[in-house]
């Protein structure tokens, strides 16, 4: 009976098919970001990993360059079943949305100039920009509670790429090493959660 109290004993190991279907499901349920769906599916419903493992893998996926959820599918798939697992999870995540978006792209190419569609999209575009601003505000809160190097780095990245419109690569080439040195020297300046 004590075994049941162990969180790991309740974990199940999915097959490749299940892995594909789960990520396909995550992909098509996730409007405006697939992460909450990934957590619900993998940790709560399927019990394929503990919440802690999920956070760890997700932190890695966020840290790596490129789309977070895509990284997550590869990291998680690899953890479950090596290279085939990574490939299957990736294809599940990208396949169905790719088909849907391609259909929309074809429709847009034909009807994008329609007054009705362009009106709707201009409204949605304004709201979508608002959502990214809101995301920025939520992320900035923990970082801007103290005046330190993280706030300064964030502001410089914003100015360089957003206001001055420099290309991303040179801005990163300067700011990332600078931030690394600062994080090394002043770990206390790092984000408080």
């Amino acid at each position: 009976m004590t075994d049941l109290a162990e969180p790991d004993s309740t974990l199940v190991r999915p097959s490749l098919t299940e892995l594909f279907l789960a990520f396909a499901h995550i992909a098509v349920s996730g409007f405006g970001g697939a992460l909450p769906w990934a957590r619900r599916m993998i940790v709560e419903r399927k019990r394929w990993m503990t919440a802690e493992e999920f956070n760890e893998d997700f932190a890695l996926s966020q840290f790596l360059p490129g789309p977070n959820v895509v990284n997550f599918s590869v990291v998680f798939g690899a953890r479950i079943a090596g290279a085939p697992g990574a490939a299957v999870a990736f294809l599940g995540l990208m396949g169905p949305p790719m088909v849907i978006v391609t259909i929309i792209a074809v429709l847009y190419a034909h009807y994008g100039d329609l007054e009705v569609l362009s009106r709707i999209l201009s409204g949605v575009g304004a709201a979508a920009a608002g959502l990214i601003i809101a995301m920025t505000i939520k992320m900035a809160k923990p970082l801007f509670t103290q005046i330190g190097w993280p706030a300064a780095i964030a502001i410089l990245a914003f100015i360089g790429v957003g206001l001055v419109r420099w290309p991303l690569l040179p801005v990163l080439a300067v700011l990332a090493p600078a931030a690394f040195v600062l994080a090394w020297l002043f770990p206390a300046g790092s984000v408080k959660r």
Partner: protein
Amino acid sequence: MNDDSPLTALATYFGLLSLIAVGGAVTAIPDMHRYAVETVHWLNDRQFTDSFAIAQLSPGPNVMIVALIGYHVAGLAGAAVATAAMCGPTCVVAYFAAQTWNKFKAARWRIALQAALVPVSLGLIGASAFVLARAADKNIAAALVTVATVVVAVFTRISPLWLFAVAGLLGLSGWL
């Protein structure tokens, strides 16, 4: 395929972007706008914001905006090449990182690296927000929709789909 084929251009640009988009696809939006709209004129401002709106409206990862840009440049092949280029290099990195990363859990360089990239991503997401708002808010009414969305999204937990529905209807009504 010659060197100035649009597919080569898509693969080169998004392949590089894939490796420098720290913090996810959203942080790459300002650079995509700079390059695709201002530098090589793959699409215009409105087509760019439309593509972003469509990517947000469609189910699936936000990175789908890349497929839309690719489609715009070179049809179905363009969509496939751009998406593969945006995901491929980073997937390889993710695959190898998955094997080794957790061995360095307590290493000082890993902790510093993680702490260093958080504010960089934040600044880039802020830049994304700024670029998108400037492109989308062509008039006062649209700017008001953006501001209202910010307020609702920060203070409530309403699904973004409702916000899109309301904003889309306002747009349809000709109010924007």
